[in-house]
């Protein structure tokens, strides 16, 4: 019935799915769930908007180069929503340059909605959410051009990035922009750490939604995320011990 190699995946996803629904239900009922610790990079988003407002300069939000099949893109969108809302409240301009056409209508809808719910629908400038190019270097060069021309005060890089990450971050640094980055693209994390003021690493970007919008569904997800991580850790430790003792039980279970 279940495909070969999928038994463990199925069991783990089922456990996590059930755990998610239970934790969210508990949270909605007002029962106690673990507290979320602070992530400095997300706290700094307020500072970035404040800085832009003081300077009267726009903020650039770059939601990565991932498409709609990339979980990182979905992790970036709630952050875009939060920053766009803050920008709308403080009458600060936000520029969203897209490098993936399929993400463009989604990012446009999220930004527009953020302005509308803040009661600033008229302040939304539709050309500020713009598609630049699918070609990542043309996209990065376009962003750098905007950075220089518009004198951007802060650059927020959130989502999946590839080789263009350093190109974007160093250009932002050169322009004197405050920079906050978040990515689970492991090969690009060192570049962001080197060039940005704050960097969210790996799973921290998936926690952003819960931190910025703490409600039962998001915080519940974060709790399950941590449980899942612990479960993974147990499996790794157990597997390592068993392999050391000469047993391939965990590896064989994964192949079933």
């Amino acid at each position, binding site marked *: 019935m279940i495909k070969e190699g999928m038994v463990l995946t199925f069991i783990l996803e089922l456990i996590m799915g059930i755990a998610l629904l239970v934790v969210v239900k508990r949270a909605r009922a007002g029962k106690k769930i673990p507290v979320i610790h602070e992530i400095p990079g997300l706290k700094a988003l307020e500072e970035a908007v404040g800085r832009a407002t003081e300077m009267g300069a726009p903020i650039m939000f770059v939601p990565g180069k991932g498409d709609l099949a990339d979980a990182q893109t979905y992790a970036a969108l709630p952050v875009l929503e939060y920053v766009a809302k803050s920008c709308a409240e403080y009458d600060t301009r936000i520029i969203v340059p897209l490098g993936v056409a399929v993400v463009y209508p989604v990012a446009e809808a999220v930004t527009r909605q953020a302005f509308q719910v803040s009661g600033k629908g008229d302040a939304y400038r539709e050309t500020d959410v713009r598609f630049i190019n699918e070609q990542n270097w043309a996209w990065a060069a376009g962003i750098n051009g905007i950075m220089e021309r518009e004198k951007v005060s802060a650059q927020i890089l959130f989502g999946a990035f590839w*080789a263009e990450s350093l190109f974007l971050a160093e250009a932002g640094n050169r322009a004197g922009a405050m920079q906050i980055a978040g990515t689970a693209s492991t090969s690009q994390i060192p570049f962001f750490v080197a060039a940005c003021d704050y960097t969210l690493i790996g799973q921290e970007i998936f926690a952003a939604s819960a931190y910025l919008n703490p409600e039962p569904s998001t915080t519940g997800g974060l709790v399950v995320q941590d449980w899942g991580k612990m479960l993974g850790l147990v499996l790794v430790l157990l597997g390592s011990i068993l392999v050391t003792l000469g047993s391939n039980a965990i590896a064989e279970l994964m192949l079933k």
Partner: protein
Amino acid sequence: MTIFEKLDSLDRRWVFAFQALVFCIVILKPVGLALTVGDQVRTAYETIDSLPAGSIVWFGTDYQAANAAELEPAALAILKHCFQKNLRVIGASTWPEGGAMMARLLNQVTPDFPDKEYGVDFLNLGYRPGGQVWLQQLTDDLPAAVGGVDHFGDPISEYPIMDGLNKIQDVALIVGIHVGTPGTPEYIRVITDPHNVPMITVLPAVSVAVTMPYLASGQLVSIVASLRGGAEYELISGFSGTAMTGMDSQSFMNLTIVIFVILGNIGFFYNKYKKGASGGGGANV
């Protein structure tokens, strides 16, 4: 401000200028540092060398023109090696520019192998949209997944190279030239791991560290890394190319960066010491 104080905060243009200067000098006057072939490239070479003549090697050209300078030397040396061993080559890509990249490789290599014929010994299937979804479809029905046509829109059914090739599992080896997503992890996830198809991957230097776990787990045969990997492959295969000439410049560019890092630290510690000596409270960073 003394020179030592300035070292802590040099204008980035000094770094750029010295890098450019060093690059020009080394390109014009190469030192000729010795190069040895590492285990990874040796494994890749031996894997291809051991394939029986007529086997099909799948080139996943999932990169774009920007990466050509770094990855093409290795790809060219491997492609030449395949042709020398009378292996048949099929190229395809999940990246929009990938079809053009495969065409570039073939245009550079085929003049050296005039007996090789399109559709018989090699084929360029070009780009197909869908990323990982398309890779998955290749495992079910390859001709259908590519829509029955090649890179140029010509029907593939009459090409002899397609005889008996119904699924991607029918190829003997995958050579993935990858720079991002879709790339090596996607190939491993849907093709090489579930269907036991061996894969060699040609990667830019920056992707090597993140791909190492797949090598350690046995899901990859070998990683041919960056220009250095290309140079090693040129050396072991005897097909000279541009990678060997780039080795000296790469070495000295890295050395320049290291020197600037050291200078920056000298400036940093000098300033820290000065702050401490002037009664700044003994900074303890």
